[in-house]
């Protein structure tokens, strides 16, 4: 049988490829996700609720949300400025800046955490001064936020730079020549053009901010009920052989990720018409 179009592959090949992709997803994503929820509920709904309602778990959830609520907006601002600068202007150290933005992706999160210990720890460069002035960064919220910002920094910028570069400067120049100020050009022209990329970057950034383990683990100090985020809390429960509680809390974290995804799909569905109208 002839394929329907030039790019169509034979039926058997399509089946094999689709099955391979679905199989991979099932084994690596769906199965573990299901396992998290099944293990969480193993000892019944009451035990599940107890594990989540436990004060340490609640405090960990709060801390996770606070850290994300500070780190994500900051990274939106930094990511937007960085990609704006890189995509729309020419300057001398541009390749260097681009490399710098990728750094958090290539550095192990544990090393990222250690950097802050080196800077702000008691034996670190700024430690004595910080203590003299009674400023707590390490083993407190500021340290967690800093470590999270470092690790999640590239998500927004990486998403926006190629998008902005592809769109070029023409529309901005057109807006300026029509008498728009820099700010209204950004607001009316640049931002609408990148909003989907930005949203995607923000969601990824948020997911990672809530799920980050390595860097946060180093700077947190693991003080129960005080500096434990959800991932750290899960680890502690797990190490205490409290599997049901560990999986219950893990399911909460997984739930947050699912909500994020749902939100993204919902927005895409809601604005599908606009997306089609734009042609891109």
């Amino acid at each position: 049988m002839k394929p329907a179009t030039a790019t169509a592959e034979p039926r058997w090949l399509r089946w094999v490829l689709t099955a391979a992709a679905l199989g991979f997803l099932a084994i690596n994503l769906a199965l573990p996700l299901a396992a998290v929820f099944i293990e969480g509920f193993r000892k019944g709904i009451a035990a599940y609720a107890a594990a989540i309602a436990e004060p340490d778990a609640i405090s960990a959830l709060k801390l996770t949300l606070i850290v994300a609520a500070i780190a994500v907006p900051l990274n939106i601002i930094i990511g937007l400025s960085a990609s704006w600068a890189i995509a729309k202007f020419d300057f001398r150290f541009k390749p260097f800046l681009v490399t710098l933005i990728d750094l958090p992706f290539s550095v192990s999160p544990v090393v990222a955490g250690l950097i802050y210990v080196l800077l702000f720890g008691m034996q670190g460069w700024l430690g004595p001064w910080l203590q003299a002035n009674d400023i707590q960064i390490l083993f407190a919220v500021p340290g967690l936020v800093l470590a999270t910002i470092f690790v999640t920094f590239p998500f927004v910028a990486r998403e926006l730079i190629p998008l902005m570069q592809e769109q070029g400067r023409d529309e901005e120049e057109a807006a300026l020549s029509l008498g728009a100020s820099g700010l209204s050009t950004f607001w009316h022209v640049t931002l609408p053009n990148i909003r989907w990329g930005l949203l995607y970057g923000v969601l990824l950034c948020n997911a990672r901010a809530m799920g980050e383990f390595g860097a946060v683990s180093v700077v947190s100090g693991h003080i129960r009920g005080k500096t434990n985020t959800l991932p750290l809390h899960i680890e502690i429960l797990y190490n205490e052989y409290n599997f049901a509680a560990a999986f219950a809390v893990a399911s909460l974290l997984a739930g947050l990720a699912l909500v994020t995804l749902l939100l993204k799909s919902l927005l895409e569905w809601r604005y599908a018409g606009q997306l089609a109208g734009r042609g891109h």
Partner: protein
Amino acid sequence: MSVSASNVTKQFGGFTALNGVSLEAQEGEFLALLGPSGSGKTTLLRILAGLEFPDSGTISIGGEDMSNRAARDRQVGFVFQQYALFRHMSVADNIGFGLTVRPGKTRPARTEIKRRVAELLELVQLPHLGDRYPAQLSGGQRQRVALARALAVEPRILLLDEPFGALDAKVRKDLRRWLREVHDRTGLTSIFVTHDQDEALDLADRVVVMDHGSIEQIDTPEMLWERPATAFVCDFLGGANRVAARAIAGSTDGGDTIDVGGVRLPNRAPAMAAGSATAFIRPHEFEIAAPGSAGIPVTLRRMLRTGAHAALETATASGTIIEATIPAPPEGLVAGDALVLVPTAVRAYPEA
């Protein structure tokens, strides 16, 4: 509004894009900047618009010095080569943009903006397309929207960067005529950039020919065609054959005389000193004669009859190809025949 640039210089890194360029467009004039890519024509246009700033030199619009004004303060309508329409806005919002973003006091009322947009949609002959998005328009339609958007802010001058560059040949011809009409109707001083000499000669009141960041000639299309000031201009206008010749000083009409293979003709280019020269002869400026006559001895390689005329492709003994268009070729002419091309008009320049 008149526009002038004086002594404008611009470098990008080590590359000199503009090298002391001066020009002036009169009120209501339609000016073309013509040149090959890299000649600096687009840079000059962008400098006039304030999208680029010169390293030295001044720009003035309507007699007012604009050199240090930002693009948004110049009241210049700019039509981009790729149109640069705002892709997330409808056609109507695109056209109204310049009015919508005006600061509080000077911003027209919503209904006034709507009225103005409708008027402009009428002018660019797209009255029913206000709700469409740019991606849903053809190239020619986008071009018209881009023009309407630029006109909406009631600019003092209109600048167009390769306005027909991205369109196919048929649309290009129609839009060309239409743009000239719009210009005549609005009376705006307009400057457009093109690399297409036909477009420049067809459309503009005066043409500015540029090369390597300098202006070679500013003239009306007629003068440009009849009296190209430099070899570059003559060559760029296209079609002319290059032939080695000799300039002889002191002819009867005060200009110089050019000797091409023994045929002596007055130089239609600016007078030059005696010596060896490069002559440019257009295909229709030849007659043919029998071997042995004065002129350029050639061998016929191919002949193409197009109606009453015949296009001859010939080669000299040294292999230089010369093309000639002859109204009534003698019968029995076949490839391989020897003949002599006798020039009837010549433009010659000192050898580069």
